[in-house]
């Protein structure tokens, strides 16, 4: 009991030093937590992707299209349940800075294939009925203050011109991890316009989405699709949506690795800082430890004193940092909503925070403890005064 009293009071005895160390730990844990959350949200898209959905694209590259005529042929393949298709549109809203994913799709099948985009029946009906209609995710609509019935203009990049769309529905995500920042409209609208202004670019799609009758058929169906179009003008590559998304962000993999490394570097730095603090405090208290040993306290008591002090300080900083991570992540996620549609501090990150704090505390305590235990009482006492 007395030992606990001493270690708690020791931890906060030198207010400035403890305060600065705790602040440092809090900031480090905050930075660590945010970086982990960035990485998590990066992969959230991949995680949210379904392994039972397949994506078919041009075998040469994602930027080359496929003919719309493939739609019927894919539907004939055994094991295929539903097929939808679409194009990456890449339109810009007012300014390039306002980035959000936007594409055109075959609306009816698309909504069936993506049940996680939840739309009210009335809005769904209105969207399907209006060729110039579009649907936006809840976060996206909120960000730009769009209301149902508003006309929104996107400036085409891949498909030149100014394109007007009318907001007919706002979907919300069925799951926490569902992306609520998408913008999609009718493929037919794009296609009809292309027929008029650029006939060679009409009747083309960027990708097909396929669902299968049974998940275990995925790879068979993928192979069958690609086999069907082998040696045709546009060969295909079919993979699971997850693999497709992974490929999509593969180029960002290096950045993710860098962020990951930085997050660990932060922990290493604070480890050195806390170790230094503990070395200083322990050196100052060598006389205290010596007198306690003189009175008959043992190495176990000294170990509890030093590890305890280190843990109290580190966990205080850690909890502060963790508490700060939530508002910080919210603010961060708010401003970067379109890049990181799902920006949420995960339970895993919080566990990592605690684990890092305990690791820091033990690392910082281990050498001072050894020294304090090893030094003879007589030597320890001579250090006083």
């Amino acid at each position, binding site marked *: *009991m*007395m030992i606990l*009293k*001493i270690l708690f*009071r*020791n931890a906060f*005895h030198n207010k400035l030093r403890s305060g600065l160390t705790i602040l440092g730990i809090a900031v480090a844990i905050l930075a660590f937590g945010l970086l982990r959350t960035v990485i998590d949200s990066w992969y959230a898209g991949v995680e949210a992707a379904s392994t039972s959905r397949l994506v078919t694209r041009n075998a040469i590259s994602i930027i080359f299209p496929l003919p719309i005529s493939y739609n019927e042929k894919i539907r004939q393949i055994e094991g295929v349940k539903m097929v939808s298709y679409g194009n990456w549109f890449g339109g810009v809203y007012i300014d390039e800075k306002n980035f959000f994913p936007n594409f055109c799709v075959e609306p009816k099948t698309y909504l069936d294939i993506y049940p996680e985009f939840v739309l009210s029946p009335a809005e769904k009906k209105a969207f399907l009925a209006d060729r110039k209609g579009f649907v936006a995710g809840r976060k996206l609509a909120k960000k730009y203050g769009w209301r149902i019935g508003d006309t929104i203009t996107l400036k085409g990049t891949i498909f030149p011109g100014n394109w007007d769309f009318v907001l007919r529905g706002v979907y919300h995500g069925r799951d926490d991890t569902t992306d609520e920042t998408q913008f999609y409209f009718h493929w037919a609208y794009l296609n009809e316009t292309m027929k008029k202004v650029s006939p060679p670019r009409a009747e083309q799609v960027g990708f097909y989405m396929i669902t299968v009758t049974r998940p275990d058929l995925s790879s068979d169906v993928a192979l069958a699709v690609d086999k069907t179009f082998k040696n045709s003008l546009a060969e295909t590559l079919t993979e699971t949506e997850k693999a497709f998304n992974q490929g999509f962000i593969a180029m960002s993999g290096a950045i993710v690795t860098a962020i990951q490394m930085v997050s660990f570097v932060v922990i290493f730095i604070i480890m050195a800082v806390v170790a230094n603090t503990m070395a200083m405090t322990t050196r100052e208290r060598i*006389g*205290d430890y*010596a*007198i*306690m*040993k*003189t*009175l*008959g*306290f*043992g190495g176990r008591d000294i170990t509890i004193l030093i590890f305890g002090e280190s843990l109290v300080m580190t966990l205080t900083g850690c909890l502060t940092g963790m508490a700060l991570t939530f508002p910080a992540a919210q603010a961060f996620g708010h401003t970067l909503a379109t890049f990181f549609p799902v920006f949420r501090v995960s339970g895993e990150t919080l566990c990592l925070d605690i684990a890092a704090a305990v690791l820091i505390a033990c690392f910082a305590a281990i050498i001072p403890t050894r020294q304090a235990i090893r030094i*003879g*009482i*007589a030597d320890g*006492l*001579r250090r*006083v*005064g």
Partner: protein
Amino acid sequence: MEEQKRIIVEIRNLYKSYHRASLTIPVLFDITFDIAEGEFLALMGPSGSGKTTLLNLLAGIDKVDKGMIRVGDVDITTLSETQLAHWRANNVGFIFQFYNLIPVLKAIENVELPLHLTSLSKRQRRDHAEMALQMVGLAHRMDHYPGEMSGGEQQRVAIARAIVTDPTILVADEPTGDLDRASAEEILGMMERLNAEMGKTIIMVTHDPRAAQRAKILRRLDKGYLAHDDSQNPL
């Protein structure tokens, strides 16, 4: 003229040296002497003569090279580290030059500290500690931290901590070395009373002749040898 007193500390042919790197520094040579129960002994000698070393050895916080130290019924040179810690907790009260109180503990908590190694209840610990503080006249300061007290007051708290376990011997290493004259007199008076009224055996290291005068017996240490003038203190 007096009845033969029981010998409480028996030191025989004690040798001690320190090792620094490849160097061996001999400090004590063939020390032999006895201390009777209820004695108040002053150990004098110039700085570096080995007084602290000798005191540490007979208080069980350092290890001898050679020789025997019996305190009460125990030859402490045969004890293991853990046994020695236990023995100290029960048999030795310590008073140091720089008081060595735990700065984050209040006066009363400092006095209670050694009692945490006993089987006393919380209530009993508190009572004993209060009584000890009363004996040194500091009951009214029990909630003060060491940093809030003068040197003399801190040393009185240290004395209370040393006597609270009712140890077999009290050892004091330059207990007045860091105090002004008035505080020093107060501390010495207190030790005298502990010896005279409560029969405490006290071994005090000092190089201050005025402090040594208060003791009943004087021993001199010079360059690691004990002088053979086994004289009564001439006062």
